[in-house]
């Protein structure tokens, strides 16, 4: 195996272990989360994003040779329509592409079925790509925009402020939940 393959496997093992311990093998975690009946999904996601945000900006600032960042292009129609389709699928499956594999690894039948559906969906997209690209992916492609560059703000301070904001939301969601449980 090549080094990048081994690194992919190691990263996946850690990511999968953490997602399973955070209970993402359960479809109900995502469904209840999206219906705002359980904030666990949001709290895990926002915590992970905040930590990653500070880490990415710190790497880019203090050790740029280790900052393998990859900002995705903002092609408005594709990102918007893809996101809208994604949300419907996530709610009815109770999984996203990553957590379906957590269900599968955790021995859940629904995880296996979601992965199989996902492979078919990916196959359909491969075939549909030549027709979709000129309509939804090529027009209105604004490029690899970031919040701080667009607003002309320094990277690390902006990341620290937004991460603190996300941390604040997590604390607030947690308080709401603790209060609701106490009643």
């Amino acid at each position: 195996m090549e080094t990048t393959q081994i690194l992919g496997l190691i990263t996946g093992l850690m990511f999968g272990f953490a997602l399973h311990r955070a209970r993402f093998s359960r479809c109900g975690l995502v469904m209840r989360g999206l219906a705002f009946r359980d904030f666990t999904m949001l709290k895990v996601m926002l915590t992970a994003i905040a930590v990653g945000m500070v880490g990415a900006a710190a790497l880019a600032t203090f050790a740029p040779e280790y900052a393998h960042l990859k900002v995705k292009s903002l092609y408005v129609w594709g990102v918007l329509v893809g996101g809208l389709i994604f949300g419907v699928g996530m709610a009815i499956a109770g999984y996203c592409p990553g957590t379906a594999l957590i269900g599968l690894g955790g021995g859940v039948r629904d995880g296996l079925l979601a992965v199989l559906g996902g492979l078919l969906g990916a196959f359909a997209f491969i075939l549909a790509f030549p027709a979709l690209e000129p309509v939804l992916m090529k027009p209105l492609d604004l490029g690899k925009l970031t919040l701080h560059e667009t607003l002309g703000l320094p990277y690390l301070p902006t990341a620290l402020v937004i991460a603190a904001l996300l941390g604040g939301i997590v604390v607030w969601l947690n308080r709401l939940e603790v209060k609701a449980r106490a009643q």
Partner: protein
Amino acid sequence: MVTERVEVRTQTVRETAAPSRSALPPWLIWGGMIGLVQIFAIATVQPLGVSTAYPQLVGWLVDKIVPGFAESQPYLQKIGAKIGWEVMLIIGLALGAFLSSVLPGGRSTPACDLPNVYRSAWGRGLAAFVGGFLILFGARLAGGCTSGHMLSGIAQLALSGFLFGAAAFATGVLTASLLLKRRTG
């Protein structure tokens, strides 16, 4: 090696801290751990992203059965029908979840912990399959999923990540609320 060390350490933290009232809640421990995995991924190869691996794996498999398929498809030429970092990542994801479920502290997961929403096991299975189809089709159209656009995109302050997150949550919240209402109503 790295995996085992990290896992053992966090597990001892959780086990030794579990009985006390001031223990760190699991969502904080594991959410923070996912953030650290993200930093590891960025420092070594690239930010976390899961959904690219699906068409890569499909392309690789179909190309074995129908030689020349990968070369004939523009999308596979763009992303590569290969077993690289991305496909190894999703193999690791499933294996990591399996390890978590069999190691101490892991719990078995019910088939679906909201069975009443779909009224029958058959209906629930169909929903998982159709939902799986939609998340991959949508993610590939948008260029990323929960990990690539949200965990990684928003963490890099990418505007595409914020737009994807807003769009996915808009229809996700609407659909999930309707489904759960159907159960109680």
